[in-house]
């Protein structure tokens, strides 16, 4: 058997039972590596269930900084008998399987092509602890200790982390360190340490941070000046508002009066949540709601109202695998069309696509400026992978000079001075009109907001010409919007090429890695990351510059490609789809494979369909 040997480059997967407190131990492991200067990308793979079912935590460690899913497992650490057969099966030949050998491995599961390493976790716990709860909790910490020895980790980093995590809670620090040591010592004394895979200190993370996108979004909303949050619980978006609340409690409660400079309401459902967000925005407060798939569908009617009545509205959509309830704890980018065209009638909604926690923070705050400036819903499209996993990211930062862009709002003074006010009057020629907040002026400035057609002075109308003029203005506004939304990021490969890739959101990391590999194989591709819909001029130009563009998406129906086709006009065979929609984050391997398949074939059929069928036979 040829053992896998590597330093600072591997994938480890922890197999646990959910509800047993394994998450924090696994997190401790990942963060320790991060502190050792190693880029890590941990991913939680959990069931839609609270307790007792298999749950996994996959960590990729890669000194080159590739953070997308790689595919394949080098080390499996399994403490869950339910999933053991699957877990051991997934280990790559030459890899390692670490398990709780208090109960010996079922002989039928045995494999000759991997190293099987037993640590008697249950036995150690039973010997050390009487309380069953403690036995369960510390079992997780013990295996982290054992791993430290097996991978030759810096033990002090671990203990330092524990101290930081339980700062001030001494009675928690010592027992945790003790448990770490139990594992560490057991491994040192009984096992061959280190195994073929090792880690060593590095300097590849710079000032980066490890943060989940949802927390970053919550902070973005806080910094963006949101005061009203209305929401309804749904995985994987719940933690956005949780984070907003956590930090608002810290910094938005007046120390003198105890009064809050924010209001959070858990609505009775998503229809109500977005209604509240709209009502608050209409009344001049910055507000938002956060949801996922089913909530987006329910919000559709209100999104149409906000589009048509031009009410600033901020919606954070943390996407999960659809359709319907789908796979609520798996990731996808499959709400693109339902959000872009949300609601009946002619509507077009603005979408933002962040791809890192830092961008979640930035775009989160930006959403409020855009919503108020453009007077339309801004739908920020993130996903479970970005939202609920710790992602390595640029640190967050805020320009203290920055002022909120509150958009076009007439003040009482302006009204008093005789400024002509027509709510839907295009005074500036950019198709964005002036609004007033309720209560501004005793006799000037009041108007009626409605989802029915009305003229430039907000008076109800059923005249075709007036309706049409308004709809055309909204179309012109779309052009203005174009100038405000984040531009794409173009990465030129520096070589002559007529082929490119286009990706967005969480496909970035895997795409970058795939491109590097392809480039090493002599296939050079330019790249563009799209960051918003409407697509800027650059997007069109970039695509036109190339003969062929691979559009990488995490959905079945090539939804972003559909938007590109609808907005611009490209000839047949120009846009080819690279798709992944099995609920796992797209991997570099998968992208590479699909691109190469395209490049080697001279298929003339619409490829996105075909590709989808291809995917059936793939596993990573």
């Amino acid at each position: 058997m040829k053992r896998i040997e590597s330093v600072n480059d591997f994938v480890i997967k922890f197999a646990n039972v959910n509800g047993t407190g394994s998450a924090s131990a696994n997190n401790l492991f990942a963060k320790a590596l991060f502190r050792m200067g190693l880029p890590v990308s941990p991913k939680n793979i959990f069931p839609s269930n609270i307790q007792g079912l298999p749950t996994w935590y996959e960590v990729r460690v890669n000194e080159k900084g590739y953070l997308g899913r790689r595919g394949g497992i080098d080390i499996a650490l399994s403490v869950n008998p339910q999933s053991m057969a699957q877990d051991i099966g997934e280990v790559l030949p030459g890899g390692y399987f670490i398990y709780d050998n208090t109960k010996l491995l079922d002989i039928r599961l045995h494999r000759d092509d991997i190293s099987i390493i037993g640590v008697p976790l249950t036995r150690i716990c039973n010997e050390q602890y009487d309380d069953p709860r403690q036995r369960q909790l510390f079992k997780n910490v013990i295996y982290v200790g054992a791993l430290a020895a097996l991978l030759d980790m810096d033990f002090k980093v671990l203990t330092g982390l524990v101290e930081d995590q339980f700062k001030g809670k001494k009675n928690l620090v010592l027992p945790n360190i003790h448990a770490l040591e139990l594992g560490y010592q057991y491994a040192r004394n009984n096992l061959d340490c280190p195994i073929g895979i090792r880690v060593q200190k590095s300097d590849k993370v710079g000032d980066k941070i490890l943060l989940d996108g949802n927390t970053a979004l919550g902070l973005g909303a806080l910094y963006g000046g949101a005061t009203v949050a209305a929401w309804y619980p749904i995985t994987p978006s719940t933690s956005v508002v949780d984070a907003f609340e956590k930090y608002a409690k810290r910094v938005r409660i007046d120390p003198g009066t105890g009064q809050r400079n924010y209001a959070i309401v858990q609505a009775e459902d998503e229809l109500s949540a977005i209604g509240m967000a709209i009502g608050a925005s209409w009344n001049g407060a910055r507000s938002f709601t956060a949801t996922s798939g089913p909530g987006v569908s329910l919000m559709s009617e209100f999104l149409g109202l906000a589009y048509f009545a031009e009410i600033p509205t901020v919606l954070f959509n943390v996407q999960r695998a659809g359709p319907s309830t789908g796979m609520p704890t798996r990731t996808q980018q499959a709400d693109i069309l339902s959000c872009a065209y949300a609601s009946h009638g002619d509507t077009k909604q603005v979408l933002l696509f962040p791809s890192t926690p830092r961008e979640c923070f930035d775009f989160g705050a930006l959403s409020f400026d855009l919503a108020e400036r453009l007077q339309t819903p801004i739908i920020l499209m993130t996903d479970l992978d970005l939202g609920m996993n710790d992602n390595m990211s640029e640190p967050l930062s805020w320009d203290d000079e920055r002022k909120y862009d509150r958009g076009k709002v007439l003040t009482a003074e302006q009204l008093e001075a005789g400024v002509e006010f027509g709510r839907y009057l295009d005074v500036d020629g950019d198709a964005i009109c002036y609004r007033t907040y309720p209560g501004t002026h005793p006799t000037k400035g009041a108007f009626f907001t409605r989802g029915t057609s009305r003229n430039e002075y907000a008076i109800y109308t059923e005249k075709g010409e007036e309706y049409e003029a308004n709809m055309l203005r909204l179309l012109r506004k779309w052009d203005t919007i174009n100038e405000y939304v984040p531009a794409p990021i173009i990465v030129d490969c520096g070589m002559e090429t007529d082929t490119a890739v286009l990706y967005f959101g969480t496909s970035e990391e895997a795409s970058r890695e795939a491109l590097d590999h392809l480039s090493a194989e002599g296939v050079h591709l330019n790249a563009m990351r799209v960051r918003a819909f409407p697509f800027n001029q650059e997007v069109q130009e970039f695509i036109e510059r190339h003969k062929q563009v691979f559009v990488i998406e995490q959905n079945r129906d090539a939804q972003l490609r559909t938007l590109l086709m609808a907005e611009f006009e490209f000839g047949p065979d120009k846009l080819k789809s690279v798709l992944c929609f099995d609920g796992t984050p797209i991997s570099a391997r998968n992208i590479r494979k699909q691109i190469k398949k395209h490049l080697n074939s001279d298929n003339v059929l619409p490829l996105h369909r075909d590709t989808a069928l291809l995917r059936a036979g793939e596993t990573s």
Partner: protein
Amino acid sequence: MSYQLPKFRHPELPVNDLGYTRADYEGAISTLCAGCGHDSISGAIVRACHELSIEPHKIAKLSGIGCSSKAPTYFLGNSHGFNSVHGRMPSVVTGAALANRDLLYMGVSGDGDTASIGMGQFTHVARRNLNMVYIVMNNGCYGLTKGQDSATADRGSASKKGDPNIYSAIDLCGTALQMGATFVARSFSGDKEQLVPLIKAAISHRGFALIDIVSPCVTFNNNTKSTKSYEFVREHAEATGTIDFVPMHSEITTEYQPGHAHEVTMHDGSSIRLYKMDESLNPFDRRSAVNVLEEHRYSGNILTGLIYMNLDSRDLHEVLETSQRPLNSLDESDLCPGNKMLLNINASLR
């Protein structure tokens, strides 16, 4: 803010404390059917707001969809209005009220808008005790879509179409009480003398104030077999008693005999006086209110007047402990924690 009011006024028109005539509280000309109950209610709202001397621009009027929901266009033309989507006015008001606690929120809805599609939001806004006036113009039918029975139509009642309704009616007052509403009243569009003081009291109440107003639809549901016709309501209405509203700071001018009236002071200093109250009802006791409503459910008579009021009501802003300053008036300096905090956060994430 103190912007000048229009100066020239017809000398005969009575002005209120702010110098406004009633015309300053009116809206566009109604496009509802001649005789529609909703128009009378609009009139009562105009009168109540004028008499209470509320600055018209400090009122926000919000509605759903329906003939009733159109009504806000026809009153308070100097107030901001929001005709939202069908059945969802409560959520929009909730958001609006959270954004600015200093305005008066007047929600207007229909029985279809509230008891059918809006049932979820209606019950929950009542439960949250949002500080608002919630007016239902209740005609037992869907006026704007041509007269289908609504969920408040009584079993056996028949609209113009002729088929007797086969379902039992939803009582919005009873439902609101169930949800913990803190002010519940019922009235009749044809009884302005009762309606105006009720609206004033609802405005003064701190918390959710429902007025369920029977408001006949002359076009589709004013026929002889309907229990929401002018005739039927006139014959079957039974008032809990009469009510007088005395705004804060008003001199007490009307004489009344202590034995026959009950005066209570509301949290804003106004007071209401109840006369000739039905013996069986104590409108300050929820159990009594629930009971009286149940009784009337059996008798088939329509109980009007103030049914319940909780004087200790704590509204949503109070339980949320929101800032006294309207949230929409806060700016960067109040809201943004600045880069320094991010440095700390970043540090904790390494």
